[in-house]
């Protein structure tokens, strides 16, 4: 299934971009974007609104031509955009028929199972379904096409809390069964724990950080202690906050070194994804760090 393979190293890559850039008139929506996404991962594409998430996904889906750089995806790509559009005059069954017609690989059983799971009537015109139901039809179409890389732009937006959890679980089950790679964008970082295992952080059209989520978070620590200009351990300061007589540092620890021991009045706390993302985004705004 893997089609474009440039060298041995890249066989296990699902997506690879180099110097990718896309601009709308004079404004760059995406710039110098370079990353590699290993196959089989569930990657979260995180960034503020307007960070370039949708643009990046559209380029990877082949819907937009980049103005510079290259993007290579292995195998077939499916993309569900944020609006989760469907043909209003098509029934859900028609949408699946379309999927079967317009894809070289089609898994009718899987697509139907998804619709059944969410109790979507097959015969009703999509225009008469609720927004949430239309989203399920769009998901079923993407799942049925058995992509190598599945890209979802804000997949959980506009879904109710229960549906969010169910869609996540179903999606991850599909990933487990088919081995596909998933790239999903979101700005609700809190929902990613345990869902994503890879992070791509975008800000202002540029890639701030990327990598295995656990490794990334394990390399960072949050220290809180008495007011101080320097952190209690060696490392790169991602974010420093000083309130009253207290200082907080989010530190990126040097690689390949044991975790430092910090005694005294400092307390350390593991960094949550939310801490990390917010600190990184705040840092770009202030011009520190990246």
């Amino acid at each position, binding site marked *: 299934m893997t089609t474009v393979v440039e060298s041995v190293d890249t066989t296990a890559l699902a997506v690879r971009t180099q110097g990718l850039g896309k601009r709308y008139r004079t404004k760059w929506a995406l710039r110098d974007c370079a990353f590699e996404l290993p196959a*089989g*991962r*569930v990657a979260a594409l995180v960034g503020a609104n307007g960070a370039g998430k949708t643009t990046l996904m559209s380029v990877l889906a082949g819907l937009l031509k980049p103005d510079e750089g290259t993007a290579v995806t292995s195998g077939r790509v499916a993309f569900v955009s944020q609006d989760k559009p469907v043909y209003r005059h098509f029934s859900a069954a028609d949408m699946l028929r379309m999927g079967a017609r317009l894809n070289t690989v089609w898994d009718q059983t899987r697509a139907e199972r998804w619709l059944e799971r969410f109790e979507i009537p097959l015969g009703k015109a999509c225009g008469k379904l609720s927004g949430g139901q239309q989203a399920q039809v769009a998901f079923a179409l993407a799942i049925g096409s058995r992509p190598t890389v599945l890209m979802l732009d804000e997949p959980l937006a506009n879904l109710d809390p229960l549906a969010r*959890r169910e869609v*996540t*679980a*179903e999606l*991850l*089950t599909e*990933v*487990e*069964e088919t081995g596909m790679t998933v790239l999903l964008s979101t700005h609700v970082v*809190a*929902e*990613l*724990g*345990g*869902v*994503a*295992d890879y992070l791509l952080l975008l800000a202002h059209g540029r890639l701030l950080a990327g990598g295995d*989520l*656990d490794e990334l*978070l*394990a390399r960072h620590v*949050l220290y809180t202690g008495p007011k101080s200009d320097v952190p209690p351990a060696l490392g790169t300061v991602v974010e420093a906050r000083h309130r009253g007589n207290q200082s907080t540092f989010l530190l990126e620890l040097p690689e390949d070194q*044991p975790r430092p*021991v*910090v*005694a005294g009045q400092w*307390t*350390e*706390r*593991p*960094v*949550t994804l*939310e*801490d990390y993302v917010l600190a990184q985004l705040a840092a770009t705004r202030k011009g520190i760090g990246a």
Partner: protein
Amino acid sequence: MEFRIDRASGLPAYLQLVRQVREALRLGWLVPGDRLPTVRDVVASSGVNANTVLKAYRELELSGLVEARQGSGTFVKAALGSGDPEVMAALRTRFAEWVRAAREAGLDTEDIDALVRSVLTEGEGEAVA
């Protein structure tokens, strides 16, 4: 058993799974010979990424608590050395007394948590050194 992921916790999801298995072992909910839920079951029931579950199971395997048997699943291999039940009970009683003393001294749950954590951190430091 069913896993829960606390998304607000700073602990990586795979470590949360590891911790929950260890707790189950410690509390006797899981005993040697028991089969852990399949990766697919965990994914479907808890909305956790399969890679996360695999990572947790591998971690448990490395620490010798479970073993993967080709084609039939992951099984509990060893009970978690929780020590003599009497010793455990005595420790618990003393700790409860300590917590009561802390409360009387005006500490709330968070203060206690911070204190315990800092002592544990120091202990780890000693262990490393």
